Every structure is written in structure tokens, then in C-alpha cells.
């Protein structure tokens, strides 16, 4: 069968158009705020085997769900209960395919005549899917038995008719059955719309041509991805992201520490992402089962490696191999709880993939345009508020304020301020007025937070500060915090750029809150949030979403850019001096850069990094090939060596861990906490700055657990 370039293009465009229309249909029929305002949904069209050929641009991690759910149905249900025209299957099972229980997936096969040519489906986050706690998330779940019990794929639509018995069975679990019913209706309608449109496409061009176009999209995109991989230098990159959860065996009030450890290995046109060294699984809540690991990994690969390529997630899988260990925190075994995975371990997974891929791309000048430092982790600062309003109604809801954190810096621009996680491009926070409409709270402040963006030649995007207090409610308001990103920074910088500021969660009295509103720092030693956190009348809830990571040595930032940030309130004068070594003077024409003072201060900083020595001068054309923006690999001699990209100082043999041969400057992680806050347990973490021993340039900055060995983060072997 031949597919001419014109027919192929018409079918390709139509597939995207059909999928977009499905999302519109879903949003129209559902109309719920989660679906429409926060865009916490996605739609996809897959080939017959479930590989996704068209996906929406909302929550990308949800797209992999569709593929895994389809694979499960194909493997188990062919004979019983059967897969036929007009059937649709619903599931929220994180061990089958969804990211966590609140994500409900509905998929439907597409039959052209007797032949199954593909599937269509969607995922929508539900306000509540039952279980012991409103919103479905519980910090102290010991296993999945303390969480919403998942529903494996169930044929809820049979012969194009909703099975009322199964619909009731699904809705009875929820505290918000009306909203869930509307979302389900929207998902059913969206699938019907897509199927009808696909069948019209088959009528017009023939089912063979449509299937052929899907196969070509998958093959062509895979080839493009492999070409991009092949064009990049081979190597290995590592990253560790920490998170804290549950009682610590060593008794730290900061809670037990879990590590997600990734080794990314690129050989030729193949990428392997190995998470095997990650910590053992926790009892409940934070683990990812394999589908969430795969969903977040593939979303991160799509965003951080696939920039400019066709948006065809199904094409990634053959070129990207995920390795994990069953029973680890990233690949949990039943019956481990997983309901809070998306705000916790999944964010660490995303960060690890982000950092390793960015380091890989940064090894090529040509591909550096795709490099992005770490963005905020969605979990930092996030909460579910619940309780009983004065009119007797129960309420429970997320503010979604936590998604107003900073984006990572790029090689040509600062990170996007208060822009949210990169892998959820269509997501966002709600208006203050909308949150106040449905939750009995009154905001005191929602502001971009000065100094929260990671310093760098290009700085990370700033995060944001949110203050709210109970309003017209006598009973205490329960506060479930996702509790991550408090004890150490999470959004990584690159090429010597610093991590973004860490998040915050606190419940303060009115006086302390007033000081925050005035822009003052409030030095407090705070506990990590417990399960009993609540707001009494007059209490103020403080949430800070993290800033994004910076790119490049902060001493190389344009002083005028620092001045503009100061004038716009994104950087304080104090941090202009301390982070970027830029001095600002008041002149008659207003604030201006003190050029001479800045020059002198920067020179002094570089000397201080070198223990008082004069730095070596920069070299015009350093030898060797690019290993990262700050390092080069010189294999001219008998033994290849790693050198500084700025001053060409030879640092070590290529086989050695270069970070062991850089100057190390360790600072407490708590210096990254906002507002003067400190968290119990933070002293277990440190931020390691690495300088070139020749010129003093900041080569890398890596947060770590105090005392752990230096990470072999960049390994050209």
C-alpha cells in the first residue's frame, strides 16, 4: 500500500484535529472547573496496539496511561468480557495505567468493519473518587487499603449504551457524584465524537490509508528522535532527587528520606533510563507504580528531548528503555499506596529525567537550544483544604496555588516566572475569586516571590507566595499538605546556575502573617506538616511554590538584567549583591548599576572561590569537544582529559568523576528556604557548589544529602 505525501498530510492533520475536538467536546459536556479551568485532562488517539499517535497538550504524563490501559485490556479481555464495537472501558487503577486513583481513564476501541484500527481515550482528574479522605489523598496511608480502592478496567459502555448498573457502582464511591457523572458523560461523548470522525476518515480514504498514516507517524517520529539521539555525544548522566515522608527510622523530625536515583545512558540512537538504585517503596501515598513512572518519564522525554519533533508519544518507547526495580519507590508492588504519587515521587522522577537530559543536550552546542534547567516540583506548597462550612455543607478542594512556581532557565532566556511545571503545559492555577467562591477562605496575598528564582547567568523563573485565612467558617479548616520541597531545593540549576528557592508550608498567626504581607522576613523554625494540620479562625496558611533553576555562573549575569529585576521586585537589592554580585546605587535619575563597584565585587568573589588566588584568564578557543557548557573533553593526548571550558585548565582524566577534581563549597540547604523560614530536618541536606580550580567559574551546583559521596553526574564514558 502506498500513501502519497498529500493524503498522508491530510490524514495526519485530521488526526490531530479529531483529538483536539475530543478535548473540546469533553470540556463542553463536563464543564467542571478541573476539566475546563485547570485543564487537568488529556485526550489521545492510539494505533491498534495502544501506541499514542495524537495527544493533547494538557497534562502530558496522563497520555502514557492510555497506552498502558489499552495494553492491559488487549491482554486480558479479548475473550471475556470481549472487546467490540461500541464498547468503552473505564479505570482509575494506578497499577494498570493511571497515574493515581483520582485520574479516571476511559478508552474505546475503533473498528473499521471488523478490524480494530485503533483506540481513542481520555483522562480526567476527579475531585473525589472515594476512600477514607476527601480528595482521595492521605498522608498516613499505610497501604492502598487506606486509599481509594482502584477500579480495574470495567466495560461501562456496552453496545454504545452506558451500563447504568456499573455507572452507579462507579459513582457511589465519590463524595462528588454529580461532578463525576458530568465528567464521565463528557468522556463518553468525546470518545463517540472521535470514533465517528475516525470512521468518516476511513470511509473517505480507506482504513488501510488511515492505519498506514498512523504507522508512518510512529516510524517517522521514532526515526527523528533516534537521529537527534545519534547526533548527541554518548555518555552517562546521573541525578538524585530526595523526598521526605513518614516517620524517620533515625528519629529526625524531618521524616524519612527517600531517594529517586537515575542513571541515564545514551549509546548511539538508544537511551536507557535506569532507576534501579532508588529507595525501597514506602507503605503508602508517595510511591509511583510503573504506569506513573512511565507516564512522567515519557512526558519528560517528550518535553525535554523532543522539542520541535512531531508530538507523537507512542514513538518514544522503542528508543527509550526504562529500567526499574520492583518494590522500589518508583515501581511499587501491590498493595503499596500510590494516591499522592503525582505530587511526590513522580515529581522527583520528572526532575531526574529533566536534569539528565538537559546535561546530555548541553553537551552539544547545536542542541543547547532545547536545554532547560529544572522547573518547580508541582508538590511544593500544594494543599487540600477540607471541613464543614457554616451553612453545614462539607467542602474539600485543592487551591492549585502550588502550580504557580518558576520555570527553568534556558540557554538564551531566563526561566518563565510563576509559570508552573513544564510537563503540564496547559495546567494553571485558578483565580483567587474562583477559589474564594468555593472554599470558605480569604486570600491575603498572592504574589511573585522575590529572590526565589535560581540565580544564574540566566536566572530561573520566580515562584510565588500565597497567604489565605478562613473566612465565614467557624469550624477548623483541615489542611493536607503535599509537604515536599521544604527541607532542600528541588528545581535544579545547570551549567553553574543555582537551584531555585525551596517551597514553604506554614500555619502562622495574624501578626506573623502581617509581617509577611509587609515583605519582611519571619525567621521561624517550623515543623514539617503533620496529618493534623488545621486552620483555626485568624490563622493564616502560607504556601510558597518553588522557583526555577538558573543557567550559568551568577557572576556572569548582565548587571542591567539584575537592575531590571530589582526595579520589578523580582530580586531584592540584598540578593542582587549576594547572589549576583551586582551593586545598585541611587542616582538622581533613579537606581542604577554601580559598574565599578560591581566589577570589583565580582573579582573579589572569584578570588574568594579560589582561596585568595588570582583567577586564570579565559581562553578564546579551548581545545577538545563540548562536554557541557562549562566542561570540555580533550582527547588529543594519550589519555583523554576533562578541561574547564572557560580557562582550559585540565581537571582530571575522562574516566574520573570530574566533580571530585573541582573546588567544593558546601552550604546548608536551608539558605534556599524563603522568608527566613527553616524546617526541622533541613540540616540533613546540603547544596554543593563546584568551582573550576583555575579560573573560579562556578561549574555546577548540586543539592545532596549531607555526607553522601559526590555524585558522578557527568560521565563521558
Amino acid at each position, binding site marked *: 500500500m502506498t500513501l502519497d505525501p498529500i493524503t498522508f498530510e491530510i490524514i495526519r492533520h485530521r488526526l490531530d484535529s479529531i483529538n483536539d475536538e475530543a478535548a473540546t467536546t469533553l470540556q463542553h459536556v463536563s464543564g467542571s472547573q478541573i476539566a475546563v479551568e485547570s485543564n487537568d485532562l488529556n485526550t489521545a488517539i492510539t494505533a491498534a496496539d495502544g501506541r499514542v499517535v495524537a495527544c493533547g497538550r494538557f497534562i502530558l504524563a496522563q497520555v502514557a496511561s492510555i497506552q498502558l490501559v489499552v495494553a492491559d485490556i488487549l491482554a486480558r479481555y479479548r475473550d471475556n468480557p470481549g472487546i467490540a464495537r461500541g464498547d468503552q472501558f473505564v479505570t482509575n487503577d494506578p497499577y494498570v495505567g493511571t497515574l493515581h486513583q483520582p485520574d479516571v481513564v476511559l478508552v474505546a476501541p475503533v473498528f473499521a468493519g471488523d478490524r480494530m484500527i485503533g483506540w481513542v481515550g481520555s483522562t480526567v482528574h476527579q475531585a473525589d473518587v472515594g476512600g477514607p479522605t476527601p480528595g482521595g489523598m492521605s498522608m498516613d496511608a499505610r497501604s492502598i487499603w487506606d486509599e481509594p480502592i482502584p477500579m480495574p478496567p470495567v466495560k461501562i459502555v456496552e453496545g454504545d449504551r452506558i451500563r447504568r448498573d456499573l455507572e452507579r457502582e462507579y459513582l457511589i464511591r465519590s463524595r462528588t457524584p454529580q461532578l463525576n457523572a458530568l465528567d464521565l458523560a463528557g468522556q463518553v461523548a468525546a470518545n463517540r465524537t472521535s470514533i465517528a*470522525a475516525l470512521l468518516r476518515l476511513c470511509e473517505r480514504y480507506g482504513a488501510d490509508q488511515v492505519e498506514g498514516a498512523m504507522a508512518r507517524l510512529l516510524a517517522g517520529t521514532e526515526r527523528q528522535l533516534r537521529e537527534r539521539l545519534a547526533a548527541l555525544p554518548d555518555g552517562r548522566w546521573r541525578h538524585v532527587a530526595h523526598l521526605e515522608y513518614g516517620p524517620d527510622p533515625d528519629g529526625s523530625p524531618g521524616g524519612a528520606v527517600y531517594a529517586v536515583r537515575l542513571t541515564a545512558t545514551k549509546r548511539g540512537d538508544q537511551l536507557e533510563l535506569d532507576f534501579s538504585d532508588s529507595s525501597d517503596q514506602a507503605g503508602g501515598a508517595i510511591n509511583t507504580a510503573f504506569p506513573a513512572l512511565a507516564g512522567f518519564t515519557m512526558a519528560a522525554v517528550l518535553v525535554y528531548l523532543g522539542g520541535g519533533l512531531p508530538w507523537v508519544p507512542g514513538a518514544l518507547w522503542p528508543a527509550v528503555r526504562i529500567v526499574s526495580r520492583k518494590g522500589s519507590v518508583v515501581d511499587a508492588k501491590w498493595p503499596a499506596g500510590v494516591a499522592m504519587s503525582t505530587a511526590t515521587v513522580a515529581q522527583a522522577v520528572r526532575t531526574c529525567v529533566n536534569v539528565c537530559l538537559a546535561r546530555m543536550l548541553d553537551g552539544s552546542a547545536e542542541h543547547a537550544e532545547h536545554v532547560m534547567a529544572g522547573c518547580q516540583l508541582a508538590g511544593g506548597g500544594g494543599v487540600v483544604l477540607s471541613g464543614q462550612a457554616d451553612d453545614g455543607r462539607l467542602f474539600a478542594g485543592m487551591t492549585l496555588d502550588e502550580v504557580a512556581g518558576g520555570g527553568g532557565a534556558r540557554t538564551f532566556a531566563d526561566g518563565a516566572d510563576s509559570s508552573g511545571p513544564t510537563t503540564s503545559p496547559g495546567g494553571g492555577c485558578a483565580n483567587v475569586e474562583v477559589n474564594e467562591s468555593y472554599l470558605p477562605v480569604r486570600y491575603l496575598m498572592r504574589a511573585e516571590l522575590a529572590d526565589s528564582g535560581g540565580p544564574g547567568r540566566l536566572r530561573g523563573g520566580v515562584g510565588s507566595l500565597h497567604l489565605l485565612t478562613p473566612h465565614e467558617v467557624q469550624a477548623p479548616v483541615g489542611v493536607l499538605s503535599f509537604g515536599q520541597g521544604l527541607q532542600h531545593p528541588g528545581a535544579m540549576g545547570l551549567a553553574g546556575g543555582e537551584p531555585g528557592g525551596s517551597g514553604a508550608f506554614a500555619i502562622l498567626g495574624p501578626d506573623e502573617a502581617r509581617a509577611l504581607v509587609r515583605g519582611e522576613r519571619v525567621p521561624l523554625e517550623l515543623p514539617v506538616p503533620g496529618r493534623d494540620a488545621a486552620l483555626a479562625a485568624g490563622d493564616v496558611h502560607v504556601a510558597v511554590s518553588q522557583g526555577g533553576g538558573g543557567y550559568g555562573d551568577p557572576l556572569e549575569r548582565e548587571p542591567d538584567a539584575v537592575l531590571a529585576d530589582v526595579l520589578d521586585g523580582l530580586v531584592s537589592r540584598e540578593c542582587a549583591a549576594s547572589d549576583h554580585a551586582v551593586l545598585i546605587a541611587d542616582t538622581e535619575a533613579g537606581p542604577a548599576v554601580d559598574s565599578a563597584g560591581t566589577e570589583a565585587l565580582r573579582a573579589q568573589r572569584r578570588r574568594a572561590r579560589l582561596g585568595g588566588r588570582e583567577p586564570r584568564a579565559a581562553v578564546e578557543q579551548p581545545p577538545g569537544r563540548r562536554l557541557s557548557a562549562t566542561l570540555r573533553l580533550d582527547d588529543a593526548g594519550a589519555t583523554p582529559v576533562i578541561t574547564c571550558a572557560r580557562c582550559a585548565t585540565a581537571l582530571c582524566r575522562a574516566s574520573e568523576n570530574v566533580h571530585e577534581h573541582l573546588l567544593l563549597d558546601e552550604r546548608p540547604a536551608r539558605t534556599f528556604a524563603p522568608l527566613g523560614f527553616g524546617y526541622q530536618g533541613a540540616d540533613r541536606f546540603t547544596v554543593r557548589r563546584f568551582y573550576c580550580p583555575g579560573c573560579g567559574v562556578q561549574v555546577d551546583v548540586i543539592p545532596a544529602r549531607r555526607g553522601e559521596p559526590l555524585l558522578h553526574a557527568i560521565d563521558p564514558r
Partner: protein
Amino acid sequence: MQLIGVDTGGTFTDAVAVTDDGRVVASKALSTPHRVEAGVLASIELLAAAVQQTPEELLARTDVFAHGTTVGLNAVLTGTGATVGVLTTAGFESTLAIAKANKVHGLSEEDLRRPTRWDKPPLLVPRRRVRGVRERIDRSGQVVEPLDEAGVRDALRALAAYGVDAIAVALLWSPLNPEHERRVAAIAAEELPDCHVSLSSELAPRIGEYERTCSVVLDAYVAPLVSSYLGRLHTALTERKFGGTLLLTRMGGGVQSVDAARRSPVQTLRSGPAGGLAATVKVGAALGHPNLVATDVGGTSFDVGLVLAGEPGYAARPMIDRFALAMPVVDVTSIGTGGGSIAWVDPVLGALRVGPQSAGAEPGPVCYGRGGTLATLTDAAAVAGYVDRLGGALELDVAAAADAIERQIARPLGLTVDEAAEGILAVACEQMKDLVRRTTVERGHDPSDFALLAYGGAGPQYAGRYAEGLGMREILVPAFAAQFSAFGAIASDIRAAAEHDLAPAPLRDSLDAVNAAAGRLAASVRAQLDLGDAPLASEQQVIVRCRIGLRFYRQVHRVDIVLPDRTIGPDDVPTLSAAFRQRYEQVVGPGSGATDSTIEAVAVSAEALLPVPLPTAGVRHGGTATPHRHREALFGGKRQRCPVYAWDELGADQSVPGPAFVESDSTTVVVHPGHAARIGADGHLRLTTGARP
């Protein structure tokens, strides 16, 4: 009664006149972006010449001059608007910058696939010019913290130091209690008497502070430019003996007086599409089509608007460029497929692609001979022989277009130039068809309930292909297709509108609040319709209508239902609920209104309409025209000699079978093989596309 409509677009300024003796003439002049009124006056000179008058003679006898302008939109797109200062509730100064944390809304297709290009919309007001004032109103409209008036004065003085020439005010919950905003306006009038002040509670009183803030900022951003332009235009027209009423197209539908446009200049931002949709409504009403799809192919975009049950659709979440708005805006969806869309070969997928990159108007398609080197959709149309002149004057360089297609498309794909040209046309028309289908059919509407209108300079060229196979009731190319937005300006009712969000509550509990708001808004819109010292003929009756905005509990889609012309009581609840469900299904899709969710009242709106009488054009007479020439054109892989008919010569109900062309001064209708064209006695052309699916 004599009317002139002028619509300034990106490339051309179009004008239509309906003279008092019933003649209808049109003209097209080049737009003059740096001195916009020059293009307007040029188009009027052409109109005057067409009726053998001087511009002064024409204007002196004109009662209504209706105008759509891009002055404000250009300022937004090029970042050349006013120096705006923003006052907001202290603690919420970042509302505009946070932008609900969304970094992709309104991005182009191209940028959407490049995550390093994801960024917020550019800030029309830098953060340093946003000032907070101490005050707070809560969700029920109660004052929690009184307005700090001294603080307002300090903030205004600080902004004055930045040289602001317009102030935007958006305080939390001002739609429910506008007192603080009004007080701020009063203080601003004392402190900065020459500044334009936009209040969110007046301009965009919808709940949701981000969109409201965007609205006042856009309004303030364009206010000085629009105001000064309207002043210059008015002077120029008066100097040319115009003594009638000057009206401006509103993006919320209808037209408004100059004074109203000065008060809310943001309303002038999307005049072209609004005019086109207004004209579509009028044509549809005359032909008995309550449901229509309005389509327009421009140089850089393809626009689709919907008319449902005789009313233009309003966007659920309106945007201008990448800026959100909190006010009714007629719903026009666009994709970046236009005459300037660049054709290219995707080497990995082996696909022939068109767009999203565009050669725009500058340098434009290769065949324009203005320096364009990349093959575009227009080049393919030129090679196929579908178009041979630009705007009636410029000859196209078909050889250069063929050469570009040969080198860039045909050779890499192993096609002939003709195959490549037809391929480009097919791909682009399918993209357009995808958009038409998405806005209608797949929302659950039955296409056989719709007529499709194709207008703009290029719409009639492509309509036969993009409307084919959709099962539309009728495909129409209206008279004056090329000047349709200008025609829309004079075909619009003079309209004033106001709305007010309510604290969401079940309908049966909201009756008092609804009655109070409806009474107040009705008086307000009636007053707004006062045209001052240039009133229209008084025999016209002002129509005032109030609507209630309803939605299902915690849903996002609001649907407006007309209220009876009296206070409502509990007995009206079932009727209103039923009307809501019916309209909900019309707008959202069949089956969607069946939920048993509570129905909430969330808004009240009012509009006042003063219909502008539109003289009917003369009836076209029968007869059979012969082709006035023939030309070679490419259909289905074959070059063939095709008849070309003059639009004006075709007799009423004469059927022209394809392949053929029907051309007027400014547009060409392509009639494909198997299709047929016929102009009715009403002057509009119908395309029949046959049975091909």
C-alpha cells in the same frame, strides 16, 4: 437615508456605500498603517468616484458613517500602546504577571511544540507600574477593609512619576461591589485629570480577577491612540462636509457611538471579524437561515464564526492575541492557514505540509513579486490558474511561483509542478475544512441545519473545496464578499450592552438580585445609547432586552437567556430553566442539558438596540450571460480552458457549471468540476458541490 461603511484591515481598507437612491457601491484601497485615516479617506474617494460625486458631495448626504478600525489592535500587536499604570488590591499586584500560571495559551502551533519557547504573554504593563492599594471586599460584596484613600493618592503620584497616560483599575470582587473602584476613579480624576481611567467593574464586571485585569489593561493600553485617531478622523470627515452620525464596530457585536468607543476603546479591537459576523447575521435573516457558518480566508489566517438561532456565538473564554478578556466577544476561531501560508516538505515523515509559517503580506507570496521566495498557498492558486490578478490591479508572476513550487516541493517529492500545486491546495483546504468541521459538526450540530458563507478577498476562491462534503444546507458567496466586514459595519444595529456578575446561587434564591440588577442595567444601556447631538431619525424604536446568565452548579459554561420584560417571580423559574436547558444543548451539544444538577444564576446582562434601516438592493434581473473571457486552469490533474463570467453580468438563477470562474472587481469564485454556481435574485451566489463525500 444614506450609509457608508469602512473597515480597515491589515492590508486593505474596504468601503461600501448604500446611497439614498438605493445604489450599493464598494471600493478597496490599500491600508496606511502609519496614518490610518489616509486609507479611509482614499476608500471614500473611490466610493465617491463610483457614484460620480466628490467626496464632499457624498459625505454631505450621508446620515451614518460606520467604521471598523485596527488602530487599537495594531498597537497591541506591535507593543506601541500607552504607558499604563495599574491599581489593584494590595497583595495581588502579581495577578497580571502570574497570568494563572499558564504559559501556552494563545501560542502558535509552531511554538507549542518547542518547550523552550513557552512563556507568558508579554506584559503590556511592567511590574514596576503596578501598585497595590489597601482595601478588601469579600465574596459576598462586604467591605472587609475600607479603601485607604491616602494610599490611592500616593500610588497615583508614584505612577505619575513614570509618566503614565492611562490608568487601569481592577480591585478584587469589584463586580459585586464597585464602590472602591468608583472612589479610586474619583480620586484619579483629581490627581491625574488628563488620564484615561478604565474600571474593571464597569468595563468587564465578571468574577475572575485575571481576565478582568487583562481587560482594563488592554482598554487603557489602546485608549489614548484610539481616542486621538477618532478625533482626527472625525475632524477629517467634518472638513469634508460630513454632518451625520459616526459609529464604530464593537467586538461585542453591533456598533456604538464615538463617545461610547472613547469610553471603552477595547471594544474596537476586533472590528473586522465582528463586522463580518454582523453582516452574516443580516444576510442569514434575509434568506431565512437562522444557523450559519461564516468563513473568511485572509493572508495569514482562516477565520470561522458561528451564528446560532440568528445570534452570533460569543466566545466562552475570549482572547485578543494572547490576552484574556472578561467581556462578551463574538466568537471567531482562527487557524494560521491563509494565502501566505508557506508550503514545505517534511523530510522525515515524507509529507507535503502547508503552514504554520506564513510569508504574510510582506514579503508575501512569490507571485506578488515583492521579494517573497518561499512557495505559498497563493502561489499554488496562481499556478493552478485560479487567480491571476491581485486586488484588481497587480499582475501575478505565475512563472516565478511555478519555479518556486518546482524547486521546493515538486522535485523533493517526485511530483510534477501541477501535482504539487494541487497538493498544496488540497492540504490547505483540508485544514480549513477541519476547522469548519470542528466548530460545527463535531459539537453535535447537524450540518444540514447550517448554511455556510464564504467572504473576504480569498474565501470564494477556496470555499468550493473546504465546504465540499460537509453536508451544508447551502454554500453562499454574498454580494460584496470582498468588503463584507465594511458591509457588516452598516448592517449592524447600534448597540449598547452591560452585564453584571452575581454571587453564584441557585436560581430560585436569586430572583430579587436578578430583578434589581436587570432594572439598573436596563436604565444604564438606554442612557448609553444616547447619540448626543447627532441623533438618528427618531422613527426608530430603541429595543431593550435583559438576559440572565445561568449555568449548572460549579460548571464553567454560562448561557444567557432572555428575561421577560417585567420583574420575575418563582413562577418564572420552570420556564427559565427549560429555556436554559434548550439553549445549553444548542450551544454545548445534544444531550448535554439532561443533567439533574442545580441551575445557578451567575450574571445579568442588558442590551439596548437601535436598528439601522438598510435599504434593499435592487433585484437582479434574469437572462443568460456569456463568458466574458476564458482562461486555462488546473482541475483534477488536467489543464483545461474554462469560462470566466463577470459577477455583475450573470442573470438571476443562471446556473454556471464547473469548471468555471465568476469574478468581480475584487474577488474570484472558483467553480470546480461537478460543482455549479448560481446568483439568486437577491444578489448572492450559491455554490452547489454535488454528491462527492
